[in-house]
């Protein structure tokens, strides 16, 4: 393969502590190397900003929910159109792009890796079918375990070995990267139109509590030595006053230590879970107690779930919250229960700056990121497309970097927002290094893919590199935010595995990325007990045969498999 030398790069590589150094980066065979030979293709960065390729640790890019959104929203698919070319397929969609736009647009912004945040095992084959069609970026997915009968039965019977054996089997069956827990127990309760009200409310018919589900999965996750921690979407999402449940959920994992250099709990899109008040009338931000908790505890990371005004398509395995949303907003509602495993719902909505509810939600995301001192603890996401589509990341980045930019946005937002939030009083402005953390380095670290070459530019890392048309030395991001946003929207160069895939925001090559998944060996008595239970459930309760259930190798053509072992 070819060699490449990027000269005069102003590099921010937080994993390796590189903070704006002017340096050269050499690439060979798709990896970062010490030096390049004279025959290397030379790109003169001319002092421009160079980041590792962006990594998105929480996004909804593929699978049944996304497709439900596409099918429900033809009006969304007539946005963002771009005709086919000799190289690229047509682009469609804004909140729910087609598979091609999904990959191209990430690459155009300098992103090279994205992880789908919710895969029901029974529908994993579909997720992988879409993964196989999303060009350029590397992918992985998190498998849903939070309302799974196999999980709840093992927990109720205090059989953690069996639980571990099942989690391993479920990750294999779905070709998943990690353990996702959505509204634990709530998906099962939604099977009869109910929900669980909090951490100690037993799941109907299964008699385990959300607390037990979170605790057991977190413990098992560490015993299995998985690269990623459990990835939790808390109970009571979308309800005023839910921040208390969120804080209590944090506490469940407080004493769990990870052997790996990462958190032992990642809580996702916390914007939707940092809500105060008792109802919509006294709805308010509770970002401060959440940020305080993060400032005092390092076992925990979160992502923002930032809201972006305009059209969104909300999609989540949290079935009941979507019904509540749809009824409240008189919006279209699709529900997607998955037998024995989980629920899901999809509802389109519009975020209006003149709605103080939406204004407060907008503020909470930013507050979480700005009040939490350690930038590594809060990832920048919009929970695409729940808070808004990922194409708005550049705008969110400027909001984090510039108080002026925030003030500009605040001028459009309903007054009442500012009585219930503290965003107006925050003057913190993140720098280029912080942004590199929040958009790539910390994502890779949280996912556990740093050692697999992601999120940094050290020797041996994947040559996933973004060059932005901006000179950090000459640019004051706190003022020139429009210029910064424009640069982040269209990378000067996006390099994926050593190949230039986009130039000035236009796709130049369409290689296919890899799919990351984890294979865990669970060699204990639990495996046989698990298989007995599983066979019984397939025989009696599943509508498909066990022999047809697991994702076959044909659906993961370019796998990157990490093996671990249960101890």
């Amino acid at each position, binding site marked *: 393969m070819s060699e490449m030398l990027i000269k005069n790069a102003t590099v921010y590589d937080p994993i390796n502590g590189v903070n704006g150094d002017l340096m050269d980066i050499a690439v060979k065979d798709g990896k970062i190397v010490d030096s390049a030979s004279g025959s290397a293709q030379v790109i003169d960065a001319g002092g421009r900003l160079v980041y590792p390729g962006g990594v998105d640790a929480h996004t909804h890019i593929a699978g*049944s929910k*996304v*497709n*439900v959104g*596409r*099918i*429900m*929203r*033809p*009006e*969304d*698919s*007539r946005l963002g*159109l771009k*005709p*086919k070319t000799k190289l690229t*397929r*047509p682009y*469609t*969609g804004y909140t*729910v*792009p*087609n*598979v*091609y736009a999904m990959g191209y647009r990430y690459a155009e912004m300098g992103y090279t890796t994205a992880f789908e945040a919710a895969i029901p095992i*029974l*529908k994993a*084959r*579909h997720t992988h*079918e*879409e993964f196989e*069609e999303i060009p350029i970026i590397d992918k992985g997915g998190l498998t849903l375990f939070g309302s799974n009968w196999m999980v709840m039965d093992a927990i109720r019977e205090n059989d953690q070995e069996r639980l571990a054996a099942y989690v391993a089997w479920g990750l294999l069956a779905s070709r998943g990267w990690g353990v996702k827990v959505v509204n634990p127990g709530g998906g099962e309760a*939604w*099977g*009869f*139109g109910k929900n669980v009200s909090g951490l100690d409310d037993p799941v109907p*018919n299964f008699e385990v509590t959300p607390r037990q589900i979170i605790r057991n999965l977190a413990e098992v996750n560490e015993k299995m030595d998985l690269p990623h921690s459990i990835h939790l979407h808390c109970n009571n999402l979308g309800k005023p006053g839910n921040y208390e449940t969120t804080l209590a959920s944090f506490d469940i994992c407080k004493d769990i230590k990870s052997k790996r250099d990462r958190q032992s709990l990642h809580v996702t899109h916390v914007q939707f879970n940092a809500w105060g008040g008792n109802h919509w009338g006294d709805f308010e931000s509770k970002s401060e107690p959440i940020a305080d908790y993060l400032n005092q505890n390092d076992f925990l990371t979160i992502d923002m779930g930032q809201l972006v005004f305009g059209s969104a398509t909300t999609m989540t395995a949290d079935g009941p919250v979507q*019904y509540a949303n*749809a*009824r409240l907003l008189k919006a*279209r*509602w*699709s*529900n*997607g*229960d*998955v*037998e*024995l495993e989980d629920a899901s719902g*999809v*509802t389109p909505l519009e975020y209006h700056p003149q709605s103080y509810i939406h204004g407060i939600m907008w503020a909470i995301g930013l507050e979480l990121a700005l009040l939490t001192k350690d930038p590594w603890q809060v990832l920048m996401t919009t929970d695409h497309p729940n808070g808004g589509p990922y194409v708005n990341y550049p705008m969110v980045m400027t909001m984090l970097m510039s108080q002026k930019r925030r003030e500009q946005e605040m001028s459009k937002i309903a007054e009442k927002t500012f009585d219930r939030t503290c965003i107006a009083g925050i003057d913190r402005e993140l720098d280029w290094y912080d942004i590199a953390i929040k958009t790539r380095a910390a994502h890779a670290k949280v996912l556990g893919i740093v050692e697999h070459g992601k999120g940094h530019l050290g020797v041996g890392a994947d040559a996933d590199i973004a060059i932005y048309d901006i000179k950090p030395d000459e640019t004051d991001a706190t003022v020139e935010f429009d210029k910064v946003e424009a640069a982040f929207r269209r990378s000067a160069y996006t390099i994926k595995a050593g190949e230039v895939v986009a130039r000035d925001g236009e796709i130049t090559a369409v290689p296919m990325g890899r799919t990351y998944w984890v294979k865990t060996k669970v060699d204990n008595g639990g495996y046989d007990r698990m298989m007995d239970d599983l066979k019984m459930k397939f025989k*009696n*309760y599943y*509508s*498909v*045969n066990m*022999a*047809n259930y697991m994702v*076959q190798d*044909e659906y993961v053509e370019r796998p990157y498999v990490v093996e671990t072992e249960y101890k």
Partner: protein
Amino acid sequence: MIIKDVLCPFCGCLCDDLAVEVEDNKVVDVKHACKIGASKIKGHDRIKAPMMRDDKNGEFREVSYDEAINESAKILANSKRPLLYGWASGVCEMMKKGVLLNEEVGGIIDNTASVCHGPSALGVHEKGLPTGTLGQFSNRADVVVFWGCNPVQAHPRHMSRYSVFAKGFFANKGRRSRKVVVFDVRKTDTANLADDYIQVNPGEDYMVLSALRAIVADKADVVPETVGGVPKEKLVEVAEVMKGAKFGIVYFGMGLTQSRGKYKNIDNAVSLITELNAHGKHSIIPMRGHYNVTGFGQVCAWETGFVNAVDMSRGIPYYNPGETCSNDLLMREEIDAAFVIAGDAGAHFPAQSIARMGKVPVIQVDPFHNPTTEMANIVIPTKVSGVELEGTAYRMDAVSLRMRKLVDVDFPSDEEVLDKIIAKVREIKGASS
């Protein structure tokens, strides 16, 4: 040799528990399948070789695959408005190639849902679709409604595997766990198995649905004494049954999609279900026909953003049933070539539409001689997916499964034929641009 856990390549039930006995590369027995599935897997007379003719009333002559493929590519590459129809009786892998071919030729791709559950998608655009996987319904449903569908005839194992007789975790007494209600314009075999049959006047389902919504919302006072031929007291009684369900499921068919109001019936039914969720848990699901017609909608949606009827003439996808479905175009005599694959337009389009298709060159890719063959200029026989070819199919509830191969044959797959046509089209278009 007995091959187990075989998927059935017939209807949207996509049963995956068949056992097929194969001897000397021939299917000799099919177990667990319904009459239709067994008939399909055992097979029928095939088109033996590619064929062409210039005059539709003339005789076919056998040609090579290359000749048939090249001639097909030439027709498609030189068309201003080709229609690429069918796609339901194949695997997803070939559907992706179909979407690509449509991009290359700037045509319209439309699948058999166009004359089946196309209106259901239009209903989903209006209101969404509260649904779930079939196992969710077999485990839980205590009230089962069939509206304008007749699974006894069209989905023979549906009742035993998923809906009526199936035992589930909560519905552990099978049939005795559930109340079964049928809405239809005639007393079908399915209605004969129901606890309650409600006869609706043809074309009046929409009003009956609205009346039920009013009753469920405690606004029965505005509802007149009879709606759609159904006495109000009967509607109140059924509404109470539905409202009282712990888990209610509505299965609907072409009795709703093809009768007056079409997609508006689905729209209204979805709203009824959404509103019922304020009381118990309720879901609704279309009874899809072909085993992978659902798969086409999935593939087309993720590739183009639209579920079906995608017009690529301008290089970007455009979708608008009423304008871009097969019969819209045929009735306007807009198309100048037809490519029919894995679906039989000839047997399932109105006579006038077919007559208009008959005026343009027709290319057929199919294992079997059927009414489309009668209208075709070029016929290219291929493998039977799910019997002679592996690949992905989506069950009616959008659960995807991998079809198995049971026997080996020398025919090319649909995907191989499409690949060659695409390559040839590119060659022709490249040369002319």
